[in-house]
């Protein structure tokens, strides 16, 4: 298997020219990250449903086939197990496939290939095979999608040893984390929050943010730590703004990496604020928030003034478009939950 020819993350990247700062959406940032990796490493290939001439249903692969040819970017037959399974064979032959699952609930036909093979090939073969594959999954709700178009599948992936699971919440991270994911020798489930696709930052690309396995403190505060990721970072920041009006100083963490979990950054924050709540869209029972609450409690019990809270979607199948606003966690719900704590010291 040939060594990647690109520069390692963190090194100066001579392959990409710096652009002037301009408003950039997450879709454009992801598109540029794919373009830059295709240019930097001939072993990178992109395939999936509709990723060719259409550029993906969200246009993340827009124009890439035209620029790089259909031996680098192509439409596969419509079959998710087939997409992951063939990517695994390609990785065995030294390629670095980046594949798209059109919507997160449509990754479920590929579940077996992901958990039984993608995640395990390194382990099964005593490290003799690596699986440098990125599975891009547009995830979560908030865009009025019909059923099967808005689910959150993170709990399935984070429960699978061997996978790295990350999710950006803004264009800069989207760019930087996707490039890093493509360069990783471990398989990465790259969850793209659909409701943030059209969010904008003023950016000059290429940009390199923190390593993708690190959480970032996106707002400092002293009373409570809100743990959020992907689509709920915006919710947490709104809650922080509302809370400020009520005299509450809220620290907001964007976890960025769901697996591995950045205990260090989270514990440091929780020890400062002594209170934590985790926000996600997925159902609560057996969900990612349960893992976060348990970890935070185990590691920081004597620093906590209150139990770790979960503000999540309900334990229901993802609702239809006209009902999703009642299901998704809101900033108001976050504040109401924080109100259930006894606050006097």
């Amino acid at each position, binding site marked *: *298997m040939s060594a990647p020819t690109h520069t390692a993350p963190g090194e100066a990247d001579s392959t990409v020219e710096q652009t002037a700062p301009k408003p950039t959406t997450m879709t454009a940032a992801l598109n540029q990250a794919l373009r830059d990796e295709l240019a930097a490493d001939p072993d990178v*290939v992109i*395939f999936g449903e509709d990723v060719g001439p259409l550029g993906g249903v969200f246009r993340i692969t827009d124009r890439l086939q035209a620029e790089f*040819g*259909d*031996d680098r970017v*192509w439409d*596969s*037959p419509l*079959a998710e*197990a*087939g997409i*992951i*399974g*063939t*990517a*695994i*064979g*390609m*990785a*065995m*032959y*030294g*390629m670095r496939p980046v594949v798209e699952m059109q919507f997160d609930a449509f990754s479920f*036909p590929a579940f*077996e*290939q992901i958990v*039984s*093979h993608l995640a*395990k*090939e*390194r*382990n*099964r*073969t*005593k*490290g*003799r*095979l*690596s699986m440098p594959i990125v599975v891009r999954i547009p995830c979560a709700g908030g865009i009025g999608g019909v059923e099967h178009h808005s689910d959150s599948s993170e709990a399935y992936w984070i429960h699978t*040893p*061997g996978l*790295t699971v990350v999710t950006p919440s803004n264009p800069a991270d989207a760019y930087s984390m996707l490039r890093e994911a493509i360069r*990783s*020798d*471990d398989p990465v489930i790259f969850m793209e929050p659909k409701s943030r696709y059209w969010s904008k930052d003023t950016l000059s690309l290429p940009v390199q943010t923190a390593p993708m396995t690190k959480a970032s403190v996106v707002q400092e505060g002293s009373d409570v730590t809100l743990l959020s990721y992907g689509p709920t970072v915006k919710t947490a920041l709104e809650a922080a703004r509302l809370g400020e009006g009520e005299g509450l100083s809220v620290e907001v963490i964007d976890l960025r990496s769901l697996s*591995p*979990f950045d*205990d*260090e950054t989270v514990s440091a924050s929780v020890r400062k604020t002594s209170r934590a709540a985790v926000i996600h869209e997925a159902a609560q029972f057996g969900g990612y928030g349960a893992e976060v609450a348990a970890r935070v409690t185990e590691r920081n019990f004597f620093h906590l003034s209150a139990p770790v809270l979960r503000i999540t979607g309900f334990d229901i199948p993802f609702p239809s478009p006209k009902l999703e606003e009642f299901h998704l966690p809101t900033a108001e719900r976050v504040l109401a939950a924080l109100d259930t704590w006894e606050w006097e010291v």
Partner: protein
Amino acid sequence: MSVHIERNEAPVLPQATPLTLINDTGHAVAGDGTGGFELPEPEILKSLYRRMVVARRFDTQVTALTRQGRLATYPSALGQEACEIGSVMALRTSDWLFPTYRDTIALLTRGISPADILEAFRGDWHSGYDPKAHRTAPAATPLATQALHAVGLGTAARLKGDNTVALTFLGDGATSEGDAHEAFNFAAVWQAPVIFMVQNNQFAISVPLKKQTHARMLADKAVGYGMPGYRVDGNDAAAVYAVVSAAVERARSGHGPTLIEGLTYRIEAHTNSDDPSRYRSNDDVLAWKARDPIERLEKYLVSQNLLSEDDRSAIAAEAESLAGDIRDAMNAEVEIDPLSLFDHVYAEPRPALLEQRQFLADELSASEDKS
């Protein structure tokens, strides 16, 4: 190069009568029955024979060791030697093989050591050999998943300008799995250099073929995907070799995938924990034993003066020496480091996993202190 290439010939329609080159009684078949395939060269036939004899000894030795409790489980390939070895011998060493749990003697034919082949069945590690060194993927236990890996690898090879071919084994039961269908379809659409070798050994554990499919035969599956399909006598090593060689040649020269159904029988139980008397009759087993792939080729070779007594004793000696190696390897106690549990989960170390490793290390040293 592009993933998509146009179909350049009409798919071959499979014939119900299996292609046979050397029949049950050890005679070369002439005329129409051969479907235009030629009997392989004498040297190839002798090599097929020798490898089948050695493989059978491998199988009986491992079954015996399993009964003695030296291996946790073993899915025997006894009776399927012609399919396994005829297929593998049609490959170059640079080609890739995608085996299942049953294809241990195919691994042997690829030059993988018995100890490495058996590591998984003994319970030491999931897969014991280096896939890249032997161009052989780790054997798949979930059914049909490996067929997609073969399609991906063959496609990658073509994109990189190599003429590597991938061959994958599938059982009759595995053809019912979704992954098999996706693999057939992807391979045909992408014209991937892949051979699907379906070993129809009549049963998926206890379920007979007629409860697995309503198709006339498994070779017919090829038609719906737009690739050539063949049905071959899976107990005739010469025919398997000839048909697979033609498919390999076709794939290598850029003409896409082929599906081959090898009609054979699993003589032993599914694994050592299976009770085949519950689902099949002894008469059936005896009838298939009479069609033994090794005896038939032996008769042919002897009738053609291609196999001397010296050859036979040399082959027997090779088989016995292999059996001895297997006994030595399986009877030797192997130390496995419990801390290796954490070694190959991620390429990049994870702090939380290092903590768990430390936990186990402490536990181990505490129990050493006690004893």
